[in-house]
């Protein structure tokens, strides 16, 4: 055994100095990074805080910077994130569990693993282009919340898979053996042990994945996310305002008032939604003819068209109150208005529209009843980063303030999600140790 020489002693001092240098360097780098972050956030807050308020959160986009808000963008972001979470998280967990617990380790799984790691680095615009081809054109899902959610879901899927695998790998093998030794199947082991014990890691990874997805702009613009949208997606429950279904329509020409409805009927052009847009406010004109020889009979009827809350039965009594019209409700729940001319058969009717010059034959239905629980998923949308992107490039400098305020909203959402991740991890980890 060597004895401790003076050289060794002075060596200690030198080694300590190197140690200190490293500590100082680390602290400096950390301070710089934090400083830049704080500066960015402060700058954003300074610019945007003034605009940030209830008005800003509850207004639709506008040409006037002072009136513009992020209502549709917040709702859009939340719904897209919901779809993203519902796709990326279960798929990512399933894929991660499969790779860790089920798949045999061979060249195929090795290739899959390498590719998952690579996918995490693919630029997001590429995902957008792929999603445009796959979801929009091939699967025909439209430029909807569903498409956006699936696109971002795919974008962050590798992150969830990697997080799941890391969390699953952290579970000691001896726990798996204990479960199998009790006679558990692979699924029982995964369900009762692997999944619950890795859940905190998976959730943390998933929320990190969602925080990445929430800021994405490029793939959403590619698939056709909107910028100006002044309405919200339909709610998942509640009754639709009544609307009319256009059964047929044709160009209306005053000279051709006698155009028989039968001709018109051949031109079926689909259905329309609430509430009676192409009619004069508060008033619809019914015009009908029973056969080509008779003159057009007209009736003017005032209805509170703007009121979506008018019940079907109220509507029926309002129409019945008109001496020339009768309303019935079919078994399918569709309201049919008929010309109740004395001594003649009730006929189809049509509505003339002076503004558009269209003749429209239709029946009124209470919106097919209630909203479908997932109608919203096919709705158009916008998201926060797109509003930011739009406003930041506008000439009017007041829009820059809106962009900063949107940035703050986005930052708050991200921080909230990370907060939830930390809290969940703390909650779930408390009971789990090996």
């Amino acid at each position, binding site marked *: 055994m060597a004895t401790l020489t003076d050289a060794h002693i002075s060596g200690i001092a030198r080694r300590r100095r190197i140690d200190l240098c490293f500590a100082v360097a680390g602290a400096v780098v950390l301070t710089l990074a934090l400083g830049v972050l704080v500066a960015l956030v402060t700058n954003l807050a300074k610019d945007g805080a003034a605009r940030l308020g209830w008005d800003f959160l509850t207004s639709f986009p506008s040409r006037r910077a002072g009136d513009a808000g992020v209502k549709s963008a917040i709702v859009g972001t939340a719904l897209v994130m919901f779809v993203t979470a519902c796709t990326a998280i279960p798929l990512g967990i399933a894929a991660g569990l499969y790779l860790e617990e089920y798949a*045999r*380790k061979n060249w195929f799984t090795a290739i899959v693993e390498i590719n998952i790691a690579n996918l995490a680095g693919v630029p997001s615009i590429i995902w957008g282009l792929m999603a445009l081809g796959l979801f929009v054109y091939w699967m025909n899902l439209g430029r909807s919340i569903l498409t956006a959610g699936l696109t971002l879901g795919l974008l962050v899927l590798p992150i969830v898979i990697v997080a799941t695998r890391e969390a699953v790998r952290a579970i*000691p093998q*001896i*726990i*798996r*053996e*204990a*479960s*199998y*030794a*009790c*006679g*558990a*199947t692979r699924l*029982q082991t995964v369900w*009762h*042990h692997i999944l619950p*014990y890795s859940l905190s890691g998976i959730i943390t990874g998933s929320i990190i994945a969602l925080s990445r997805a929430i800021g994405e702009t490029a793939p959403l613009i590619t698939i056709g996310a909107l910028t100006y949208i002044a309405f919200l997606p339909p709610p998942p429950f509640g009754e639709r305002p009544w609307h009319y279904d256009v059964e047929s329509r044709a160009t209306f020409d005053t000279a051709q008032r006698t155009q028989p409805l039968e001709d018109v009927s051949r031109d079926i052009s689909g259905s329309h939604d609430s509430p009676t847009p192409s009619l004069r406010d508060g008033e619809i004109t019914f015009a009908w003819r029973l056969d080509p020889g008779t003159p057009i009979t007209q009736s003017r009827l005032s209805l509170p068209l703007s009121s979506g809350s008018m019940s079907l039965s109220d509507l029926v009594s309002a129409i019945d109150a008109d001496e020339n019209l009768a309303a019935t409700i079919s078994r399918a729940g569709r309201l049919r208005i008929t010309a109740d001319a004395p001594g003649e058969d009730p006929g189809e009717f049509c509505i003339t529209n002076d503004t558009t010059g269209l003749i429209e034959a239709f029946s009124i239905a209470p919106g097919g009843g209630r909203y479908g629980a997932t109608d919203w998923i096919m709705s158009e949308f916008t998201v926060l980063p797109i509003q930011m992107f739009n406003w930041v490039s506008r000439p009017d400098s007041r829009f820059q303030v809106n962009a900063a305020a949107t940035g703050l909203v986005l930052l708050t959402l991200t921080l909230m999600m990370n907060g939830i991740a930390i809290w969940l991890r703390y909650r779930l980890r408390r*009971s*789990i*140790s*090996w």
Partner: protein
Amino acid sequence: MVTTPTPSENTGSNQMNAAADVSPLVASMALPQPLPSDFEPAQSPTIKAVAENLHFHYGKFHALKGVSLPIMQNQITALIGPSGCGKSTFLRCFNRMHDLYPNSTYQGAIRLLPDDINLVGPGIDPIAVRMRISMVFQKPNPFPKSIFENVAFSLRVRGGFSRSEISDEVERSLRSAALWDETKDRLHEPANKLSGGQQQRLCIARSLASHPEIILFDEPTSALDPKATRRIEELMTEIKSQVTVLVVTHNMQQASRVSDYTAFMYLGELIEYGPTAKVFQNPANQLTEEYISGRFG
């Protein structure tokens, strides 16, 4: 001493008189023909399982080379030998633990009596095996769940038990594992709040809950202090009236203290098997003697 098994439920070509089949093997295993004087006739053991020319490969590595060994019912059989001799490998053949890993191949047989099933046979579902033969591991490995759920798990995987049945079984198992008094007021607390020794007893309770026929102990006390070790050893002695015990141990004193039979393995082969007293006091094989006296291993 050799019982007549009841091959009643056995069907097919495997059906044979197990006793007749086993006896020549047992005779060749140098079983105690004249029983040692301290052996009580009432305990005259029957055979619970028997390994016949068992070979095991990890990939190309030949880990067990034709091991043949009887396991006596309601007795403790200790497997001893230096590290790498294959004793744990042998133990883990009994509940098909090797099936969890790729490239494991069994040859030969482990026949579970009295119904004469080849545990390592091709048509046998490892899950069915594990439902009859449970295991206690080297390091206490309770699930990070409550004490109650740890014990209930092997019943839950089977399914079909009512709430009260499960809770009865949990109580019975905890009592058998001498853990009931310490835990009856905290059944729903996390298991990993227990001490190491308690955790290992919990693992024993967990393995008892399913009424196994054999419990495999894989060096169950190597992670425990002497006091907890003693407790586990007592427990093994207590439970052998309910279940057949097979224990791998590094600890020579433990083997001599608790086991009724001892098998000494070396380099994947069985070197010597016999009643513990005989193996320790009068080993037939030179290697056994050297190992027991601490000259290698």
